[in-house]
């Protein structure tokens, strides 16, 4: 066999071995890369900046939760957040309170425990885009009333306490989903609905609407 052919075969063999090495444990490596990206993408595990400053004044808010066997679907519980300068941070604090669940006996948690808020955006026209992790959909137990309670505990808690937010668009896993658990349409932003609660409209609604109109 000529010498240059031998050299060629050796070079090819070495190249083949290197290529094989690339495939060793490729699934495991991809998984670890994906996992590290996932933990980095969640701002609620390690917030890059605090949601409020020590000097921010406290702000009472009403957080909506499903009632246990009540006539109305939702009822409100009084909680306190801090009035941070950034509206987005106030919205994030309210969502944290919704995720934490109620402390009152007569109320039930509205969101599956494993679900997290991934990001919150506010648009100029007063739409809040809230992006939940997939667990809010996959771990949801189902039921039309139950799904409506989940969605409106989010929508009402945000719109009731922050008059700047007129409507809420719920995203799941970073994308638009048709429904959360098969029933309620999420393709459109949703407005506050107090008819399913036992809470009167917020007193400042009129003023804020007038301000909005002007």
């Amino acid at each position, binding site marked *: 066999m*000529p010498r240059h*052919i031998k050299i060629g075969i050796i070079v090819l063999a070495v190249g083949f071995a290197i290529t094989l090495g690339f495939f060793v444990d490729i699934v495991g490596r991809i998984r670890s890369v994906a996992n590290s990206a996932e933990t980095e993408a969640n701002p609620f595990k390690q917030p890059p900046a605090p949601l409020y400053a020590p000097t921010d004044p406290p702000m009472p808010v009403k957080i909506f939760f*499903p009632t*246990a*066997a009540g*006539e109305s*679907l939702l009822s409100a519980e009084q909680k306190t957040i801090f009035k941070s300068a950034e509206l987005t941070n106030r919205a994030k604090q309210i969502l944290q309170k919704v995720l934490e669940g109620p402390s009152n006996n007569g109320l*039930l*948690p509205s969101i599956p425990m494993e679900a997290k808020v991934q990001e919150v955006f506010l648009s100029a026209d007063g*739409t809040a885009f809230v992006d939940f992790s997939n667990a809010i959909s996959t771990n949801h*137990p*189902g*039921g*039309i*009333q*139950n799904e*409506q309670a989940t969605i409106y505990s989010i929508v009402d808690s945000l719109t009731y306490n922050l008059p700047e937010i*007129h*409507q809420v668009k719920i995203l799941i896993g970073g994308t638009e989903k*048709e*429904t959360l*658990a*098969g*029933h*309620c*349409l999420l*393709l*459109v*932003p*949703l*407005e506050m*609905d107090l*008819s*399913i609660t036992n809470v009167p409209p917020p007193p400042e609604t009129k003023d804020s609407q007038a301000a909005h109109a002007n």
Partner: protein
Amino acid sequence: MTRFVVRAPLFAVLLVLAAAFFFYSRSIRAADDRFPIYFDDSTVALKTENVNRATYLPLKELVDHLHLPYTDAKILELFTIGSSNNPSIVLAKNSRLIQVNGQQTLLAFPVLREGQQWLVPIDFLTQALSRVTGVEFRYKPGASRIFAGKVTPAELVMNAQALGSITRLTIGTSSPVNLNLKRDATQHRAVLEMGSKPVDPLRERLDYRDRLVRSIAFEDSDGAPRIVIETTDGVGDIRVSKAEEGRVHFVDFLKPGASPEAEPATAPPGLPSAVTKLDPLANKGIRVVVIDPGHGGMDAGATSGGVTEKDLALAISRTLRTALRDRLGVTVLLTRDSDVALTNEARSAVANNNQADLFLSLHIGYSPDKRDSGSSIYVIKEDFAGQTSAVSSDRLFLPWYMGYHANRNVSGGFASTLQEEFHKTLPDWKFPIRSGPIAVLASTTMPAVAFEIGNLNSAANSQIVDGGFQGRIVSTIVAAVERFAAARRSGA
């Protein structure tokens, strides 16, 4: 090693062939097609040529049809339309630049001349010919027909779906048409002739095939619009029935020997199918009820132990279908008759395409509170999408999720009837009527409610799996539908 040496010329030849294909593929012609142009009083089908991915029309045939004088100067390679001393249009071979009424205009593709034939791109019609003749040409890019002048084509929408053992093609047109079925059973082909009036299809070809139908396509290359359906040899009978004065046609493909009574899409026994189709409310108040068993497939809905919402909903829906058919003699369709996943749009499409008079979406409830009965009746929430999509009732086109708009009040009426009947049968259970942005109700164009029965999270509710209890629920729903039909009949 000699083998490598021998193969080298072979590779070289292949490489040259590939390169040649790359360079010459740009001038490869696609199969020539015929292209109808619909004028006010006539139709001309021109043979088009596809050159360099552009569609070209034969200029001389077009000009002849319009009776325009022209001169073909072979040596100058110029084509002039109009009188020779004051031409209206001048074209030159291989040039995009043309002269129209003394003005220069640029076409999208160059004018071609092949032997005796002149070829012009389609935008020649709008850029040049309509400015000279005053006839407006309307062309949808990608379509293979042109409408000229005051021609108003009937818009055509086709939809096909399998309903039990039959396949139904629904044909909707914006103005009434007469369908004439011609069947060639040996060739497995059915042709629905649509008369001589021009038709503008939304889609030329329906992306649908199943056990009975291979392909459904619109075809009018010779100027005679028709729908061509390739069938399999499993088709026995094809029935055409019309509704809404000829604006909607149902074409049902039946298996051989299938009895009409057993089919969901045909009329109940005792009534000839054509009569019920033409007069949908003939002394029954309602004609078609669509039941939607919630969830299905990967989406099990609520679960408790081994019990899943999807299975329970399907079991109750099947019993309800039989009961409604027997008691009211109406046509009852299920959106799913097996464990399959469906989108909410597909569910409401079954009701919309079959002109249902009532849509019932059946679910089993789940409440985190174990003491709750879990049941509720849902109607769509009015204007749930807020100001972003505020709709005035006089708008011609509504977004898909606004289909509910016209029937919301009637849906509310049926919800109260259903609530009253449930309170009679199950006095201990609460059946609150709620409204919400329910996806499956949003795009239905008939009275529609969704309801959930029981609470899978509650041990006290385990009777929901019991057949006798399900029978009580079914007869309650039948009683509500009966009252609804009676109210319809009396015109309330």
